[in-house]
């Protein structure tokens, strides 16, 4: 499978009479987008607002972040199995509005969703402070059930991303990147002298509000399976996840998985990147055993010499992570795991809920419990009335002057376990 990603660089965003890109400026027609979102009769109102890097703006509570894209050629369309037909994606050409994002906000349940600060110290912790964000603050109709609300908000974000992405269809990209992974035998033959490397992609699937969808299927129900890396780059996986802002993978993270990106960067030089195994993180121990057995078996079956395993979330997924690591190491395959830590505010507590000596190569995205003070912002997109209910916030965290004292786990993407950021932790 060969995928061309054409990046159309976006450096600013503005409302305009037409949704279009002009000279790296993204114009958004507010009315059209509002009408699109309100087609869903579960949504009572939506307010569309823009947030640019450096603005004195706080976006909260953030549910998902999505990169606007369009399929130019090749099989399928954007978000297959969810808002378009369930076709296999990952080949042909896809155009990306690089530097722009759709951010959905809403109080789905009274806690959990995160904070994006566009400037100040908090901005350093979230990659989304660097993007031109089109924010949708979604208000549900009276009495809408949480799952319905989550679903409505999820769909609204994806539909708007698709809609905005359309404008890139006929544009000339500023840069084109090409990624290719061949069918397994061919791929192995391509670099017979290099070690074969795979990627074990763990997806949060605990249940309501903790779900991830693969081609529209709730990943809780899958048995681990193999995918071409380009399928993931092309929108096959989306987030339905509201939990722990710091280490959930938003749809943007899935679209731009950095582990896939850097595995490709050294593919053919240091190793032969031959495939991705996706797996889940369920609450049943039997599922954990089954899924980790499968990842180990598939890793062996595909002849991997080494794998990177990434986690999503914390707590019980630590058990999945360690099971995957142990079983794959037991098959004589070298592992590197990517996680984050909950070492307490003082940094002195046990960081993970599971551990094993076999996990001897760990990359960490930081201690999510570290406390930060976020200064007041001139503009709040969404509402900060729920700040002290956000995971990582605590009573009294919203101060009267509008500043917030929170653990960085309240910041969207701060301790991402795909290695999206530079944040990490050391023992001192």
């Amino acid at each position: 499978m060969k995928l061309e990603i054409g990046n159309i660089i976006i450096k600013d965003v503005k409302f305009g009479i037409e949704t279009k890109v002009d000279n790296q400026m993204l114009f958004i027609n507010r009315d059209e987008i509002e009408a699109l979102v309100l087609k869903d009769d579960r949504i009572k109102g939506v307010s569309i607002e823009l947030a640019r890097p450096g603005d004195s703006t706080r976006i909260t509570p953030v549910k998902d972040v999505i990169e606007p894209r369009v399929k130019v050629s090749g099989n399928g369309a954007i978000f297959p199995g969810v808002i378009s037909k369930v076709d296999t994606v990952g080949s042909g050409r896809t155009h990306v509005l690089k530097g722009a994002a759709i951010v959905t906000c809403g109080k789905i349940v009274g806690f959990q969703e995160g904070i994006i600060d566009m400037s100040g110290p908090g901005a350093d912790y979230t990659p989304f402070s660097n993007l031109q964000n089109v924010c949708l603050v979604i208000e549900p109709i009276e009495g809408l059930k949480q799952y319905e609300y989550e679903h409505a908000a999820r769909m609204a974000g994806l539909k708007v991303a698709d809609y905005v992405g359309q404008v890139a269809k006929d544009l000339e990209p500023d840069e084109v990147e090409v990624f290719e992974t061949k069918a397994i035998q061919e791929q192995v033959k391509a670099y017979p002298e290099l070690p074969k490397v795979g990627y074990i992609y763990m997806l949060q699937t605990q249940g309501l509000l903790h779900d991830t969808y693969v081609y529209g299927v709730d990943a809780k129900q899958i048995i681990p399976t193999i995918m071409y890396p380009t399928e993931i780059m092309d929108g096959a996986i989306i987030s339905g996840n509201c939990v722990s802002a710091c280490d959930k993978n938003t749809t943007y993270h899935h679209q731009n998985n950095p582990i896939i990106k850097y595995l490709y960067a050294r593919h053919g030089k240091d190793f032969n990147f031959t495939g991705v195994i996706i797996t889940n993180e369920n609450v049943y121990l039997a599922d954990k055993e089954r899924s980790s057995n499968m990842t180990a078996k598939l890793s062996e079956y595909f002849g991997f010499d080494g794998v990177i395993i990434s986690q999503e979330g914390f707590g019980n997924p630590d058990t999945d992570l360690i099971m995957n690591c142990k079983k794959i190491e037991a098959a004589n395959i070298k592992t590197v795991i990517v996680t984050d830590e909950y070492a307490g505010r003082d940094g002195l507590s046990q960081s993970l809920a599971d551990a094993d000596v076999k996990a001897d190569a760990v990359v960490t995205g930081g201690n999510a419990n570290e406390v930060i003070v976020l200064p007041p912002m001139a503009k709040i997109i969404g509402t900060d009335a729920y700040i002290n209910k956000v995971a990582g916030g605590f009573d009294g965290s919203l101060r009267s002057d509008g500043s917030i004292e929170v653990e960085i786990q309240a910041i969207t993407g701060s301790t991402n376990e795909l290695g999206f950021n530079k944040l990490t932790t050391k023992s001192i």
Partner: protein
Amino acid sequence: MAYKVIHYINQFFANIGGEEMAHVTPEIREGAVGPGLGINKAFKGEAEIVCTVICGDSYFNENTEAATKEILELIKPYEADAFIAGPAFNAGRYGTACGTIAKAVQETMHIPAVTGMYIENPGVDMFKKELYIVETSNAAVGMRKALPKMSALTLKLMSNEADLDPTIDGYIPRGIRKNYFAELTGAERAVDMLVKKLNDESYTTEYPMPVFDRIEPGKAIKDLSKAKIALVTSGGIVPKDNPDRIESSSASKYGTYNIESVLNLTGDNYETAHGGYDPVYANDEPDRVVPLDVLRDLEKEGVIGSIHPYFYSTVGNGTAVKSSKEFSLEIAEKLRQDGVDAVILTST
């Protein structure tokens, strides 16, 4: 103006004498003594040792509380900016003394304290979380290397240089996890690490898994009939009504109970504080957890020499080892001082 520093050493490094002089009580001398001269040299005028406090290792360890108080009184008038203890290398009691006094100074005088020890010195485990302990070699031959490191770290702490790093500043990591921004993203670091691992090159994990390090097995007892054996349990057996209020799960303390005149533990006088299992069997017959009845018989028959007059009890559960570590060292030290030859430890 140069910073003022107080230095703590034991009787040996003060040239008073070895083990035979370990009982000497705290005294203070103006200026630097022994290793302090080397520290002063390494300070290069930026700081100076204003006084040296000396205490015998036995005196300190046998009268910890009193000794700590005396020393704090002695050094108070000097209004120092920092405190250095040792280095103690691999000397266990000296290490404990250095750690104890340095911690006390840090807490009561609010000035930074630095000490130095060999990684296996028991003082390391006891104090590394609270103190900056410079890693030294296991014997005094490492003095020349240790002193500049300790001096540099002390200077850094006094000038409030916040960003300390054990790999640069040479101290034993305190186990505090601290965030920072790395040069590369996590994904790049992960791919780098994988390449190194595939090529069998060395790499550094960013989160070392907590491992249970091994301890050398104690030497076997030669003559059982002369051995003094102590009973210790994590099964929570305590005198009726749990006088020390040992918690029912992962207890934070332990009890010491005299059994000199006790022949066996009965349900009338003893019970379990353990909340992790059905307590009926242990309450009915506490010997089922602490086998004093059998051990008394073996003592009478001369199979073993004697039973230590105290047994130690706490509530531990299997994997939660960390919480018990601190007091297990305390129990261990008492057992050692009382000349116990072997321990039977029972767990549920």
